[in-house]
Structure formats: C-alpha cells, structure tokens
C-alpha cells in the first residue's frame, strides 16, 4: 500500500489557540483511517486544512504525490477529495437531487449535467434518501442532512472521502446500517478518513486510528491498541465502564 495522503508537520493557530500543531501522519490508499480526540482537539480544523478551506501556518499536505498545500477548496475537490461536514452545509434551497448533482458535476469526474443527474439519483438512493430526492434540503431532519452530506460527497466519486461525524444523531440501528454503507464505499475503492465520537462504529470500521489531543498526535495504532492506551482513556474515553454498562444494559 502506498500513501494516498501525507500530512507533514502541519500547524494552524487561531489567536492563542493552537488548533493543529506540528501534526504528521499518512493515509494509505484503500484504508479507513479513524480520527478521534476530545472536543476541540483540532480534528475538524485538520479537515479544513486538508481541503483548503483555510491555509496552514506551516507544514505540507501531499495528495497522490502532488503538494496541494494552500490550494483553494475547489481545486482540491477536483483532485478527488470530497468532504461531509460536521456542521452540515446543505444548499438549503436546492433539492436533495440538486445538491448531489453539484457534487457530481464539480467533483473529480467533471460530469455533464445529464450524467450528474443519473449519478446523483443512484447515490442518493444508496444512502437512503431515495424517496426524498425532490425534497428541498432545508426540510430534511438533522440525520437526513447528515446523509445528504455524505451522498453529495460521494456523488463526486472522490478518491479520498473525509467524513466528519456522519453518524452523530443516528440511533444504534441506523448506525449499524450506516456502517455497512461506509464499508460499501470503501469496497468501491474509495479511501476514507473519518472523524467520529461513536466508539462502537469507529472501532469496528477503522483499519487504523489516529488520536488527536490539543492539536497534536496523542496516539496512533490499530483500534484495539488505541482502546487500551491509558493516555487515550484518560483524555478521551474516560471511565468507559459507564458507557459500556449502559450499552450492555438491555
């Protein structure tokens, strides 16, 4: 496996807050890399840096052998990086289908309008929005918007998919379905970098996990190793007995 994305010594601060500092890691072609960490650890900021929404203060981002540091987001998107946002950014006045079409039209494939319509319809169907295709995005529920974020990103047929908490707001059954969906995406050849606070999901999906804390890498490894890492437990997982007990309760 070769590195599809390589992040080297990346830093970004906001005033006095070091949101990301001197961070390095790689994402291999075809893998699912999980990204976890306490709230405000800098995970979403990292995504913003990768897809060019904000420029880094220092460091490099290399995608598929090309240095993309500082490129504007639409160029990055063309190169094949798509993203589902944590705080959803639907194009409220457009329908679900149109939202997805935008993704398809302007993503890596640069599809024509007609092709994009077909592709968008298929993808919307596949993430479970099939019956809401003509609903304006503004009328979707939170979870619906989350799905839409994902469908739109997928419609671009990216090489790297950045998923920022797409499982938040779903109930356990829905999460289980979504996990399958994400596995399917990976199987179609798309590399995934995902942020998630739902432990059960991230643990079962990820090939590897990177843990961020205060903008720095706290740990990196296979899910099991991470779950047992005392630093991670202290900073992030906490006394997991409580949650495991409630999850095991029924």
């Amino acid at each position, binding site marked *: 496996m070769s590195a599809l994305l390589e992040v080297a010594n990346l830093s970004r601060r906001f005033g006095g807050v070091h949101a990301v500092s001197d961070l390095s890691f790689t994402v291999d072609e075809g893998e699912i890399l999980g990204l976890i960490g306490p709230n*405000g650890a800098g*995970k979403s900021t990292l995504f913003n840096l990768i897809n060019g929404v904000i420029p880094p203060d220092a460091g490099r981002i290399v995608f598929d052998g090309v240095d993309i540091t500082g490129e504007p987001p639409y160029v990055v998107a063309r190169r094949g990086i798509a993203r589902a946002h*944590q705080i959803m950014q639907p194009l409220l006045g457009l329908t679900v289908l149109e939202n997805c079409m935008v993704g398809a039209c302007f993503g890596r494939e640069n599809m024509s309008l007609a092709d994009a319509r077909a592709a968008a319809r298929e993808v919307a169907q596949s993430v479970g929005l099939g019956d809401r295709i003509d609903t304006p995005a503004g009328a979707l529920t*939170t*979870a619906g918007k989350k799905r839409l974020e994902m469908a739109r990103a997928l419609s671009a047929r990216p090489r790297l998919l950045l998923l920022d908490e797409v499982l*938040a707001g779903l109930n356990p059954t*829905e999460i289980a379905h979504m996990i399958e969906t994400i596995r399917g995406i990976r199987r179609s050849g798309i590399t995934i970098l995902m942020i998630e606070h739902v432990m059960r999901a991230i643990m079962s999906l990820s090939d590897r996990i990177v843990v961020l804390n205060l903008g720095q890498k706290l740990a990196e490894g296979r899910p099991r190793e991470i779950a047992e890492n005392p630093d991670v437990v202290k900073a*992030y997982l906490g006394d997991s007995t409580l*949650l495991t007990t409630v999850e095991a309760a*029924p």
Partner: protein
Amino acid sequence: MTGSGRELLLEVEGLEAGYDGVQILWGVSLKVKRGTMTTLVGANGAGKTTTLRAITGAIRPMRGRVIFAGEDVTHLATHAKAARGLILVPEGRQLYAEMSVEENLEMGAYSARARRRFSANLERVYSLFPRLKERRRQRAGTFSGGEQQMLAIARGLMSDPEILIVDELSLGLAPVVVQQLVETLRSLKQAGVTILLVEQNVHLALALSDYAYVIADGHPFTEGPSVEIAAKPEIREAYLGL
C-alpha cells in the same frame, strides 16, 4: 382532565403539527411527572424534534394542548414559556455565534427567575465544562462542534429550568464528556429538575430515564417505564440495533 399541576409538570394532549401545510405529528401525547426524567424515542425523522418545537411554540400546533404546571400554555409565545421555566436546548445548538461565550451564558439567564440564581448557576456550568471558562471571551461561532454542544447545554442550565428539554444531548460530544453530562443530569434530577430527553443513543436514554415514549412516523407507538420499553423485542430491533 388537566391533572394536578403539582404532580404532573408537563402534559401534552393529542398534538398535531407540521410545516407549511404538511402534517408531521398525528396526535402525540406525553405526560412528564415532576422530578422525573422522561425520554422520547423514535427513528430518524419520526417527529421528535417537531414535537419539541410544537411544545415550545416554535411552530404552531394545529390541534392539541400543552399544559405546563397546570396552565394551558398551548398558545403562549415561546419566550413566555421560557419565562415560566420551560426550557429547550434545541437540536442544532442555536448559539449566538457573534457573541462571546460569557454573553451566551448571560442570555441564557435572561428571564427574571434565572437572573436570581445567576452566579450560582454560572459557577456550576463552569465547573461542569472547564473549557467554557478557559475560553469565555471566544466567539461562540468559532467553537468546535463539541464545544458548541457544551455551550448550548450550559446555556440551557443557566436558564434555571423547571423542566429541561434536551434535543440530542450527546450529539458530537467525546465519550468522556458524555459521562460527565450523565452525572450532571442525575444530580439535576436529584435537585428536583424535571427532564425530558431526546437522545439518539437510545441505550443511554433508556438507561438514564424513568419513563419512555416511542413515536413512529409522527404517531404514538408505545410507552412505558424505560426498563420495560428497553426489553421489548420490537424496540430492541428497531432502535437498539440488537
């Protein structure tokens, strides 16, 4: 049948509501006893948020009644309900993005009843979420997702609620923070605050609460003590992924 305001704090009868002429809720009813924690469960899009919005008055119910502390408040404005202690921490956080953390918290304590306990409440939320205290001058809009969720909950607590309604309590929060929150809710309940919880982590919601209502497609589906609900096979399959 108004029920006595002393035991029954919030009573919702046959609520019907929707958006732009599209009806979403078809006769949802709830009863929340004083000092208990009740949960409302349902699949994505079932109408939980809509129910809460109809209760607070963000959308106007087409039919049905909302009775709070013995008073029919169905047609009161949202702010009037808030002034009576009916507090919602909304889905999607709804922060004052351009104002500082501190100012957000102050606005939470806008009503006369909340102002009285301002300092005590402020201390409580700061010790619950130290991050907020560290960053009290930061603009709320620049917070991370989880930090925003903390602030939204903190602001709700600042309102000194009679009943605290939380939509999506744990959304986007790190596990360690969720644990703390659970503790907080328990102690709030101990302190006599009534809680109505909507939470996608159904395991958590059922484990925490005393009583549960389940809605499906805007219709009441079933209800009962949380332990019993959690044990029902159809619930386990539909909501617990088991």
